[in-house]
């Protein structure tokens, strides 16, 4: 049942998508979670703040994603009793987020796993670095504490442990796989190795510079994070962008999606022993990046999105070449798709591997690309299109099989659709200024930017401080939701398929670790 207070006590949320905020006591916090679970919402993010300097309270916020809007539920706790009701019963995906909130702020959920998550011994147990009375310059010696992995015992069970440093050029993370014979009985992940204290670091940035840090939360999603940060700031300051600036942002976001999908399609093929796929797709990706460099002066478009607009223009002369390259990419992707589809050896490895059923995806709170491959037909560009997606009408791609093959097919679909969107954007590129100067935001405002990056929804929640400072900024990568999916998708698969399954999700470590 939908409780009345969710409507009667809500205030509008400043965001690039429709949304509202609701202040809730402990009872309402839980009631809201129950109602939202029933309404089919996903938990988008969970973050806490130290507001003891304002009202002697800690605050916890949960952002939920409904098909047509975002709901932020806020709950304040007195400093003496910093405990809030756990969201894990309705949203299992909240577990690691709750552990992270505790590691950084010392406010605890009344249920769920209590092991540290981001704190690996790099700072003392009783120090909570995101609290305002902890100096940002303070550092601590490492006191390594063994992490209590869940033991798996029984006849014939042995353990394959890998990481944090892996055999290839990969980000660091630790995986414990309990194995019987060749099959994986259980996988437990341990992440947090690349935790860089991004949230604390944001507090020393000016609002007008924060996009540079946001763009480096997860480098492969730099446009999505940069845009989400700017969208949050622009919502607070009610800055209107020129049609040209938003079109160029969308062009950059779609090119980021294409670059990553091309890279993944090659790497997934390679992990199934098809080196031809890697050679072909990595060449296509390199061509796209070199073209980015020619046209925008940047291969990966770091800092292309800036508050108020974009950093550089697209010359009229570049458009015909861009369109030609898009047509070339379309032809190549169609051809390679047919080769992938007709290659029996490849399909034998893809089909049925790492399956995540639609039921599992729903229960676990999957989001973004991985969710769409398991039948959850959600894409912010389609469901809640912000400008300019409201005029682009992107077509949603979805699959129901939930295996490696489905995630591959989805990438093919989305790559072709993004190429179409790029063409449409270039054909109708409006005139207008590149960048408007956003006014300084008043202190104490909350804004939320939500952008469908190539992995899924990327969120930045920004709270302003006085004199153009940032009081609190929480970036959230969809990898938070999707890392636990791999623990389920691997079950019953053979250990040698782990790299293939992992690559088919291709989640961000840095984006998750923060």
């Amino acid at each position, binding site marked *: 049942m939908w409780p009345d207070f969710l409507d009667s006590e809500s205030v509008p949320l400043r965001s690039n998508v429709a949304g509202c905020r609701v202040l809730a006591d402990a009872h309402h916090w839980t009631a809201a979670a129950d109602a939202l679970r029933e309404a089919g919402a996903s938990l988008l993010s969970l973050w806490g703040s130290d507001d003891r300097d304002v009202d002697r309270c800690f605050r916890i916020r949960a952002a939920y994603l409904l098909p047509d809007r975002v709901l932020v539920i806020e709950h304040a706790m007195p400093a003496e009793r910093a405990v809030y009701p756990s969201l894990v019963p309705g949203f299992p995906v909240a577990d690691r987020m709750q552990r992270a909130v505790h590691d950084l702020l010392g406010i605890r959920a009344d249920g769920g796993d209590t092991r540290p998550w*981001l704190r*690996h011994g*790099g*700072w003392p147990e009783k*120090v909570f*670095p995101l609290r305002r009375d*902890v100096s*940002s*310059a*303070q*550092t*601590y010696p*490492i006191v*390594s504490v063994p992490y209590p992995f869940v033991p798996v015992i029984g006849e014939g069970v042995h353990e394959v442990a890998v990481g*944090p*440093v892996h*055999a*290839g*050029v*990969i*980000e*660091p993370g630790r995986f414990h796989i309990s194995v019987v014979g060749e099959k994986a009985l259980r996988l437990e992940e341990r992440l*947090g*190795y*690349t*935790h*860089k*204290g*991004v949230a*604390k*670091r944001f507090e020393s940035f000016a609002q007008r510079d924060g996009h*540079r*840090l946001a763009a*480096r*939360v*997860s*480098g*492969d999603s730099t446009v999505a994070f940069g845009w989400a940060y700017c969208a949050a700031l622009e919502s607070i300051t009610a800055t209107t962008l020129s049609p040209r600036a938003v079109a160029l942002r969308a062009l950059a976001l779609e090119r980021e999606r294409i670059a990553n999908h091309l*890279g993944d399609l090659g790497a997934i093929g390679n992990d199934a022993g098809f080196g*031809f796929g890697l*050679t*072909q797709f*990595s*060449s296509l*990706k*390199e061509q796209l990046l070199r073209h980015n*460099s020619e046209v925008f002066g940047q*291969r*990966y478009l*770091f800092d292309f999105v800036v508050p108020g607009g974009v950093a550089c223009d697209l010359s009229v002369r570049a458009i015909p070449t861009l369109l030609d390259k898009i047509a070339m990419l379309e032809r190549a992707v169609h*051809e*390679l798709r*047919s080769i992938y589809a*007709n*290659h029996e050896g490849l399909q034998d490895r893809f089909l049925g591997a790492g399956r995540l059923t639609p039921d599992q995806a729903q229960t676990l709170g999957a989001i973004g690309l991985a969710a769409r491959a398991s039948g959850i037909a959600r894409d912010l560009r389609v469901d809640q299109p912000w400008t300019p997606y409201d005029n682009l009408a992107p077509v949603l791609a979805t699959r129901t099989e939930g295996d490696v093959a489905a995630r591959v097919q989805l990438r093919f679909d989305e790559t072709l659709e993004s190429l179409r969107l790029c063409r449409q954007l270039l054909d109708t590129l409006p005139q207008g200024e590149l960048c408007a100067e956003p006014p300084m935001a008043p202190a104490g405002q909350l804004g939320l930017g939500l952008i469908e990056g190539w992995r899924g929804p990327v969120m930045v929640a920004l709270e302003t401080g006085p004199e153009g400072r940032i009081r609190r900024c929480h970036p959230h990568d969809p990898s938070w939701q999707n890392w636990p999916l791999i623990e389920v998708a691997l079950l019953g698969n053979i250990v040698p398929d782990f790299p293939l399954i992992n690559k088919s999700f291709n989640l*961000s*470590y*840095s*984006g998750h*670790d923060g």
Partner: protein
Amino acid sequence: MFDILSRIRRVGSLSEPLPSPDTDTELTAIQRELHAVFGRALCIRHVDAGSCNGCELEIHALSNPYYNLEGAGIRFVASPRHADLLLVTGPVSVNMEDALRQTYEAMPEPKWVLAVGDCGACGGVFNTNYAVRGPISEVIPVDAVVNGCPPSPLAILRGLVYITRHLDRPRP
């Protein structure tokens, strides 16, 4: 099978030409120099000590057909025990400090360290805080750095050349 062969034939070789004194672009000059020093046998171990993964994307790009890294005899290896050179990215996160040090210590002598990216070189946007130690040189000796955020594949290759030129010099 026919369609695979057909595409291979049509795409042809994309690798920028292998070293030859006549066709000297910067890339070929770099490749030739690497070849001269290492004789097609430079083994690199990569460690991400806390990067945002932007640098990893460009290190990956080195392996695409254009840069033809393996053609120049440079390989990424799976173990520090097999490596001549450690390629490190990121500001060093405290959670990776031990792993980075252990990887370095596991490498046989002589060994070199190349810090890749602004974060590895000087801390980048992340600076130093409770979770970040700062540049790679705070934790292990560094022989050379490659600036850029992220540095282009060509810039990383230049860094490799710089190291080859200064191999004999004692570490600071």
